[in-house]
Protein backbone atom coordinates (compact mmCIF):
# COMPACT_ATOMS: atom_id res chain seq x y z
CA UNK A 1 0.00 0.00 0.00
CA UNK A 2 3.05 2.15 0.03
CA UNK A 3 2.21 3.85 -3.26
CA UNK A 4 -1.36 4.83 -2.52
CA UNK A 5 -0.55 8.12 -1.00
CA UNK A 6 -4.10 9.43 -1.13
CA UNK A 7 -5.39 6.49 0.81
CA UNK A 8 -2.73 6.87 3.43
CA UNK A 9 -3.36 10.52 3.94
CA UNK A 10 -7.12 10.20 3.97
CA UNK A 11 -6.92 7.33 6.41
CA UNK A 12 -4.78 9.31 8.77
CA UNK A 13 -7.19 12.16 8.43
CA UNK A 14 -10.31 10.10 8.99
CA UNK A 15 -8.97 7.97 11.78
CA UNK A 16 -9.50 10.39 14.68
CA UNK A 17 -12.93 11.37 13.43
CA UNK A 18 -14.10 7.81 13.27
CA UNK A 19 -12.85 7.27 16.78
CA UNK A 20 -14.58 10.40 17.91
CA UNK A 21 -17.80 9.36 16.26
CA UNK A 22 -17.54 5.99 17.96
CA UNK A 23 -17.16 7.65 21.31
CA UNK A 24 -20.09 9.92 20.56
CA UNK A 25 -22.31 6.99 19.70
CA UNK A 26 -21.07 5.24 22.80
CA UNK A 27 -21.67 7.98 25.29
CA UNK A 28 -24.81 9.29 23.70
CA UNK A 29 -26.25 5.81 23.66
CA UNK A 30 -28.14 6.02 26.90
CA UNK A 31 -30.45 8.80 25.77
CA UNK A 32 -30.35 8.75 21.99
CA UNK A 33 -29.83 6.34 19.14
CA UNK A 34 -26.59 4.50 19.65
CA UNK A 35 -25.04 2.29 22.24
CA UNK A 36 -22.31 -0.14 22.87
CA UNK A 37 -22.84 -2.43 19.91
CA UNK A 38 -22.75 0.26 17.31
CA UNK A 39 -20.00 2.19 18.98
CA UNK A 40 -17.87 -0.88 19.34
CA UNK A 41 -18.19 -1.72 15.70
CA UNK A 42 -17.40 1.81 14.60
CA UNK A 43 -14.43 1.95 16.92
CA UNK A 44 -13.15 -1.33 15.55
CA UNK A 45 -13.77 -0.13 12.01
CA UNK A 46 -11.31 2.69 12.48
CA UNK A 47 -8.56 0.29 13.44
CA UNK A 48 -9.50 -2.13 10.71
CA UNK A 49 -9.27 0.65 8.19
CA UNK A 50 -5.93 1.66 9.62
CA UNK A 51 -4.51 -1.82 9.47
CA UNK A 52 -5.76 -2.31 5.93
CA UNK A 53 -3.79 0.65 4.80
CA UNK A 54 -0.77 0.53 7.07
CA UNK A 55 -0.54 -3.18 7.67
CA UNK A 56 -1.79 -5.35 10.43
CA UNK A 57 1.51 -5.31 12.23
CA UNK A 58 1.49 -1.59 12.83
CA UNK A 59 -2.06 -1.74 14.09
CA UNK A 60 -1.18 -4.56 16.40
CA UNK A 61 1.67 -2.50 17.66
CA UNK A 62 -0.91 -0.25 19.25
CA UNK A 63 -3.33 -2.97 20.24
CA UNK A 64 -1.51 -6.23 20.86
CA UNK A 65 -3.43 -9.46 21.15
CA UNK A 66 -3.11 -9.45 24.91
CA UNK A 67 -4.88 -6.14 25.31
CA UNK A 68 -7.66 -7.12 22.95
CA UNK A 69 -8.18 -10.35 24.81
CA UNK A 70 -8.27 -8.49 28.09
CA UNK A 71 -10.73 -6.10 26.50
CA UNK A 72 -13.05 -8.90 25.50
CA UNK A 73 -12.99 -10.39 28.95
CA UNK A 74 -12.96 -7.07 30.76
CA UNK A 75 -15.93 -5.64 28.93
CA UNK A 76 -18.02 -8.69 29.65
CA UNK A 77 -16.87 -8.64 33.22
CA UNK A 78 -17.76 -4.97 33.61
CA UNK A 79 -21.25 -5.69 32.36
CA UNK A 80 -21.70 -8.68 34.64
CA UNK A 81 -20.22 -6.95 37.67
CA UNK A 82 -22.52 -3.95 37.37
CA UNK A 83 -25.32 -6.46 37.85
CA UNK A 84 -23.56 -7.97 40.81
CA UNK A 85 -23.14 -4.56 42.40
CA UNK A 86 -26.88 -4.11 42.06
CA UNK A 87 -27.38 -7.43 43.74
CA UNK A 88 -25.14 -6.41 46.58
CA UNK A 89 -27.00 -3.13 46.90
CA UNK A 90 -30.12 -5.15 47.51
CA UNK A 91 -31.88 -4.74 44.18
CA UNK A 92 -32.53 -7.25 41.45
CA UNK A 93 -29.86 -8.09 38.91
CA UNK A 94 -29.28 -5.15 36.57
CA UNK A 95 -31.70 -2.94 38.50
CA UNK A 96 -29.52 0.16 38.52
CA UNK A 97 -31.75 2.37 40.63
CA UNK A 98 -29.85 2.04 43.90
CA UNK A 99 -26.49 2.83 42.33
CA UNK A 100 -26.92 6.42 43.27
CA UNK A 101 -28.95 8.28 45.82
CA UNK A 102 -31.44 9.27 43.16
CA UNK A 103 -32.98 6.44 41.18
CA UNK A 104 -32.78 8.25 37.85
CA UNK A 105 -29.12 9.08 38.25
CA UNK A 106 -28.45 5.53 39.28
CA UNK A 107 -30.15 4.25 36.17
CA UNK A 108 -28.07 6.57 34.05
CA UNK A 109 -24.90 5.42 35.65
CA UNK A 110 -25.80 1.77 35.39
CA UNK A 111 -26.76 1.78 31.74
CA UNK A 112 -23.71 3.87 30.97
CA UNK A 113 -21.37 1.32 32.54
CA UNK A 114 -23.14 -1.59 30.96
CA UNK A 115 -22.97 -0.02 27.53
CA UNK A 116 -19.35 0.77 28.08
CA UNK A 117 -18.69 -2.86 28.82
CA UNK A 118 -20.58 -3.90 25.72
CA UNK A 119 -18.68 -1.37 23.65
CA UNK A 120 -15.29 -2.54 24.84
CA UNK A 121 -16.13 -6.17 24.22
CA UNK A 122 -17.61 -5.60 20.79
CA UNK A 123 -14.72 -3.45 19.66
CA UNK A 124 -12.19 -5.96 20.94
CA UNK A 125 -14.00 -8.88 19.39
CA UNK A 126 -14.28 -7.22 16.01
CA UNK A 127 -10.62 -6.33 15.95
CA UNK A 128 -9.54 -9.72 17.18
CA UNK A 129 -11.56 -11.36 14.48
CA UNK A 130 -10.05 -9.19 11.81
CA UNK A 131 -6.51 -9.53 13.07
CA UNK A 132 -6.84 -13.28 13.42
CA UNK A 133 -8.03 -13.77 9.89
CA UNK A 134 -5.62 -11.23 8.50
CA UNK A 135 -2.55 -12.73 10.11
CA UNK A 136 -3.47 -16.34 9.36
CA UNK A 137 -0.68 -17.97 7.46
CA UNK A 138 -1.11 -21.21 5.66
CA UNK A 139 1.55 -23.59 6.68
Amino acid at each position, binding site marked *: MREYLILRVITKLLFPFILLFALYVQFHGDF*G*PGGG*FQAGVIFAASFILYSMVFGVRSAQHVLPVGILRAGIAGGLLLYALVGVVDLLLGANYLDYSPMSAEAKVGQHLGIFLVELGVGIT*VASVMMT*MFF*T*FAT*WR*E*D
Partner: protein
Amino acid sequence: MVDFFGLYNYWIVIVLAMAGMYIVIARGNLIKKLVGLNVFQASVFVLYISFGKVSGGTAPILLKGVVTYSNPLPHVLILTAIVVGVATTALGLALVVRIRREYGTIEEDDIHSQDGHT
Protein backbone atom coordinates in the same frame (compact mmCIF):
# COMPACT_ATOMS: atom_id res chain seq x y z
CA MET B 1 -53.94 -8.21 -5.94
CA VAL B 2 -53.28 -5.39 -3.51
CA ASP B 3 -53.08 -7.92 -0.72
CA PHE B 4 -50.73 -9.92 -2.78
CA PHE B 5 -48.27 -7.12 -3.44
CA GLY B 6 -49.21 -4.96 -0.51
CA LEU B 7 -47.30 -7.31 1.68
CA TYR B 8 -44.27 -7.12 -0.56
CA ASN B 9 -41.92 -7.01 2.41
CA TYR B 10 -42.91 -10.57 3.27
CA TRP B 11 -42.28 -11.61 -0.29
CA ILE B 12 -38.81 -10.24 0.04
CA VAL B 13 -38.37 -12.19 3.22
CA ILE B 14 -39.53 -15.37 1.57
CA VAL B 15 -37.37 -14.92 -1.49
CA LEU B 16 -34.31 -14.18 0.63
CA ALA B 17 -34.95 -17.10 2.91
CA MET B 18 -35.43 -19.53 0.05
CA ALA B 19 -32.37 -18.24 -1.76
CA GLY B 20 -30.30 -18.57 1.37
CA MET B 21 -31.50 -22.06 2.12
CA TYR B 22 -30.93 -23.08 -1.45
CA ILE B 23 -27.34 -21.92 -1.35
CA VAL B 24 -26.74 -23.75 1.90
CA ILE B 25 -28.12 -26.95 0.49
CA ALA B 26 -26.93 -26.84 -3.10
CA ARG B 27 -23.41 -25.43 -2.84
CA GLY B 28 -20.49 -27.60 -1.97
CA ASN B 29 -18.15 -24.74 -1.20
CA LEU B 30 -17.98 -24.24 2.54
CA ILE B 31 -17.68 -20.48 2.31
CA LYS B 32 -20.60 -20.23 -0.09
CA LYS B 33 -22.63 -22.19 2.37
CA LEU B 34 -21.82 -19.64 5.03
CA VAL B 35 -22.82 -16.85 2.69
CA GLY B 36 -26.07 -18.64 2.08
CA LEU B 37 -26.58 -18.92 5.79
CA ASN B 38 -26.06 -15.20 6.11
CA VAL B 39 -28.59 -14.47 3.41
CA PHE B 40 -31.03 -16.72 5.18
CA GLN B 41 -30.48 -14.93 8.45
CA ALA B 42 -30.80 -11.58 6.73
CA SER B 43 -34.28 -12.57 5.67
CA VAL B 44 -35.21 -12.88 9.31
CA PHE B 45 -33.77 -9.49 10.06
CA VAL B 46 -35.96 -8.01 7.39
CA LEU B 47 -38.94 -9.89 8.75
CA TYR B 48 -38.48 -8.48 12.23
CA ILE B 49 -37.80 -4.97 11.14
CA SER B 50 -40.70 -4.88 8.76
CA PHE B 51 -43.22 -5.83 11.36
CA GLY B 52 -41.79 -3.29 13.75
CA LYS B 53 -43.00 -0.62 11.38
CA VAL B 54 -46.19 1.06 12.40
CA SER B 55 -48.03 2.70 9.48
CA GLY B 56 -47.56 6.42 9.68
CA GLY B 57 -45.21 6.10 12.60
CA THR B 58 -41.86 7.73 12.69
CA ALA B 59 -38.53 6.62 14.06
CA PRO B 60 -38.86 5.87 17.76
CA ILE B 61 -37.01 8.91 18.96
CA LEU B 62 -38.83 11.18 21.34
CA LEU B 63 -39.90 14.31 19.49
CA LYS B 64 -42.33 17.05 20.24
CA GLY B 65 -45.57 16.79 18.40
CA VAL B 66 -45.27 13.22 17.29
CA VAL B 67 -47.63 10.62 18.66
CA THR B 68 -47.13 7.54 16.50
CA TYR B 69 -43.81 5.83 16.68
CA SER B 70 -42.67 2.64 15.11
CA ASN B 71 -42.14 -0.21 17.52
CA PRO B 72 -38.51 -0.10 18.59
CA LEU B 73 -38.50 -3.50 20.24
CA PRO B 74 -38.00 -5.60 17.08
CA HIS B 75 -35.03 -3.44 16.20
CA VAL B 76 -33.43 -4.12 19.50
CA LEU B 77 -34.15 -7.78 19.20
CA ILE B 78 -32.75 -7.98 15.76
CA LEU B 79 -29.65 -6.15 16.82
CA THR B 80 -29.02 -9.06 19.12
CA ALA B 81 -29.79 -11.50 16.37
CA ILE B 82 -27.35 -9.71 14.08
CA VAL B 83 -24.66 -10.03 16.70
CA VAL B 84 -25.39 -13.71 16.97
CA GLY B 85 -25.20 -13.93 13.20
CA VAL B 86 -21.85 -12.17 13.10
CA ALA B 87 -20.48 -14.48 15.74
CA THR B 88 -21.75 -17.50 13.86
CA THR B 89 -20.20 -16.32 10.64
CA ALA B 90 -16.89 -15.57 12.27
CA LEU B 91 -16.81 -18.95 13.90
CA GLY B 92 -17.82 -20.65 10.69
CA LEU B 93 -15.08 -18.88 8.77
CA ALA B 94 -12.53 -19.79 11.40
CA LEU B 95 -13.58 -23.40 11.03
CA VAL B 96 -13.28 -23.15 7.26
CA VAL B 97 -9.76 -21.80 7.60
CA ARG B 98 -8.81 -24.70 9.87
CA ILE B 99 -10.47 -27.16 7.53
CA ARG B 100 -8.58 -25.72 4.61
CA ARG B 101 -5.35 -26.15 6.51
CA GLU B 102 -6.10 -29.77 7.44
CA TYR B 103 -7.59 -30.91 4.17
CA GLY B 104 -6.17 -28.50 1.67
CA THR B 105 -9.61 -27.85 0.20
CA ILE B 106 -12.89 -26.27 1.10
CA GLU B 107 -15.04 -28.26 -1.30
CA GLU B 108 -17.38 -30.57 0.52
CA ASP B 109 -17.02 -33.42 -1.97
CA ASP B 110 -13.24 -33.41 -1.77
CA ILE B 111 -13.38 -33.46 2.00
CA HIS B 112 -15.75 -36.38 2.00
CA SER B 113 -13.64 -38.32 -0.44
CA GLN B 114 -10.55 -37.66 1.69
CA ASP B 115 -12.27 -38.86 4.82
CA GLY B 116 -13.59 -41.83 2.99
CA HIS B 117 -10.04 -43.01 2.35
CA THR B 118 -8.71 -42.42 5.82
